[in-house]
């Protein structure tokens, strides 16, 4: 049975973490990274469907130390008291957590794992800290590309419901036309809203490009899994490469696109698959 331990991290000990030590009992070594799993959105550290707990315990069985913790203001961790903005606060939390893991447990290298917002935090942080040597990014934010839109509209065009909406005047095209004509959406439902439209601004693209480039330049390995359910974000495997053409991932990137998989890996089979993939990938690059 794994003997998990509570670890309060950061200078205020305000970040609540759970350490799942490697089951083989081996002491931390500079060559063996600890895996640190970040929050997804505002779900606390156990993760969607308890996925993070299961991941940490499986890693432990494979001789890997794993840590899950709550960023400030999420789960059991207290909010920060220094007035940092949301992103800077999260990045500082990660630094403080790694500092504690290094000073209290002797870890020198880390693999960060994140789903959704956790993936974004992981990649943005990685370029700032040489201790991070690997990234597992599940459904990270990727700007849309021309091929994304081609796929998107091609798939819509093959859906009967899209044609029915055009016939009924409910299609977003009609609503956009109506709004341009100054008539609003008379009798129609609100136009479809793209929740991530801001990712396609030049500023957002430049920010993410810089983040991936910095993470790549500092020598990180990447495991990236994109799920088909987030069709609003990405809809083909190579979208990551097309969105960041100036980042030379080379053979340090393992990139996968999973059909029939939901964003939070809800079915047990999906969860076992992603946990298995991570548990296989982490030790492979540890040496």
């Amino acid at each position, binding site marked *: 049975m794994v003997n998990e331990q*509570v670890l309060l991290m950061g200078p205020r000990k305000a970040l*609540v973490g*759970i350490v799942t030590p490697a089951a083989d009992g081996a002491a931390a070594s500079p060559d063996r990274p600890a895996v640190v799993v970040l929050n997804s959105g505002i*779900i*606390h550290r156990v993760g969607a*469907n308890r996925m993070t707990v299961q991941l940490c315990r499986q890693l432990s069985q494979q001789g890997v130390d794993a840590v899950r913790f709550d960023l400030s203001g999420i789960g*059991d961790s207290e909010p920060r008291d220094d007035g940092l903005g949301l992103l800077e606060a999260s990045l500082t939390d990660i630094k403080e957590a790694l500092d504690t893991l290094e000073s209290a447990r002797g870890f020198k290298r880390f693999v960060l794992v994140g789903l959704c917002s956790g993936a974004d935090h992981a990649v943005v942080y990685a370029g700032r800290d040489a201790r991070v040597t690997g990234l597992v990014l599940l459904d990270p934010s990727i700007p849309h590309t021309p091929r994304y839109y081609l796929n998107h509209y091609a798939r819509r065009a093959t859906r009967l419901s899209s044609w029915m909406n055009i016939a009924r005047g409910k299609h977003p095209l009609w609503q956009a036309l109506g709004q341009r004509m100054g008539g609003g959406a008379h009798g129609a439902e609100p136009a479809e809203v793209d929740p991530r439209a801001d990712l396609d601004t030049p500023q957002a693209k430049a920010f993410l490009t810089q983040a991936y480039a910095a993470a790549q330049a500092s020598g990180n390995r990447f495991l990236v899994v994109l799920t088909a359910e987030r069709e609003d974000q990405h809809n083909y495997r190579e979208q990551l490469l097309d969105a960041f053409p100036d980042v030379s991932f080379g053979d340090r990137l393992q990139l996968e696109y999973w059909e029939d998989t939901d964003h939070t890996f*809800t079915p047990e089979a999906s969860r076992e698959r992603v946990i298995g993939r991570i548990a296989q990938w982490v030790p492979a690059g540890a040496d």
Partner: protein
Amino acid sequence: MNPFFFGTRQRRLFGVYSPARASASGSGTRAVLLCAPWGQEYLRAHRAIKQLATLLNQSGVHVLRFDWFGTGDSAGEMLDASLAGWQGDIETAIDELKDTTDAARVGLVGLRLGGTLAASVAARRRKDVDSLVLWDPVVSGEAYVKELLADAPARKAEHGGGHEVMGFALGEAMSAELRGLVLPHAELPARTLVVRSVPGEAVGAVPAEQVEGQPAWLEDHHSGAGAVPVKVLQRIAQWWS
């Protein structure tokens, strides 16, 4: 706030103890154990339960909240869990809370399934439990299981059977236990409050107080988390102050 593991080596439970931040009104030490719901409801309600602990602390009440065996940060897997075991977890947590605070008796607050289990333990630990809050409790185990299994795919027999309930395994034995679960409405502590954020009936002789607010255990805005129903939490904290 003190997050820690407690219980036995074979059944380690994760808990968070938070002490009172003010003196309680009246005499004696006041201590309350919070009992969580199960499955997705547990994940969604985590924020509200933590916030309730804070409000209770501000009202002069010591609080322990914990994860059932096989859930959250506690040891074990769902297929190793049972309702009888979870009732035992409440008893372990009651002992831990009494030991930590020196309180002679404790109160229980249970949300959804946590309420039903808390009521059953309150009925058999009368010497230790003097008050109970049932927050949107599951009144009929039979109806609850029917709801859980409505769209739940079956799990393979070689993996332990049962069903997958929105990402969580529910074994046949536990389903059977749930079907037989009845809220012991005739044996509630004399001091019992029933709070509902969704319409519902009285529990035995205790009328239900309908309090405005979104249910903490339902998903709010596709976040995976539930809302924090401030008025519900305030009502519960006020009841103890």
